[in-house]
């Protein structure tokens, strides 16, 4: 699966994307976040507060209980500030 990071989350993690294989026990975005937090202290810190992290699955806004598959593009970003 393709993981994308934007804005302050991208800066905290230090990369804009990474490709990972979905572990069998990762079924939802929430599971995926728990998995990603184990990658590094930066991942842990950037994805710690899910009140702050917004999610898109395949370019559509999603909630933490959204299911994920190995072919998905999952993006994590802070609340948007365009306009």
């Amino acid at each position, binding site marked *: 699966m393709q993981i994308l990071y934007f*804005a302050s989350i991208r800066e905290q993690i230090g990369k804009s994307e990474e490709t990972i294989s979905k572990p069998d026990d990762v079924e939802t975005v929430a599971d995926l976040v728990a998995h990603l937090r184990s990658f590094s202290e930066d991942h842990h810190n950037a994805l710690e507060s899910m009140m702050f992290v917004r999610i898109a699955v395949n370019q559509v*806004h999603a909630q933490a209980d959204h299911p994920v598959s190995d072919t998905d593009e999952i993006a994590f*970003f802070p609340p948007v500030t*365009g*306009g």
Partner: protein
Amino acid sequence: MQPQISVQLDDFDIGNEINQLKVDKHDIGAVVSFVGTVRDLADGLTSMTLEHYPAMTEAELARIAKEAKERWPLEGCRIIHRFGELFPGDNIVLVITASAHRQAAFDAANFIMDFLKTNAPFWKKETTSRGAKWVDANDADDKALERWQK
């Protein structure tokens, strides 16, 4: 009527955009436009950088425009959002709605801006003499959405 969406580095000309929206249309009596610009605040903003999520941005703006078109009788709808580095006074976003009826045009433009502010994947980073800082999201923008709940 197909909403026209652009996400671009370049500036836009509002007069041109309105004229293009009116081509071959006969029942437009009201055109409302919104332009969002970079404010030059007291703390000495030198520039603002807009990051976005390219694969998602246009699709999300199109989804918002489609929702507006389903709610109001629009004859035309145009959204342009810039990204990249911008300076005080620069244009950031343009929304144009055209209708036979003025209230439909006003409400649709207002609705599109409220949804764009909370849903379109853009992030602003402000640079001042003291450094660069991501702009915090505004709670008032979430509140603004509530009045559009059906």
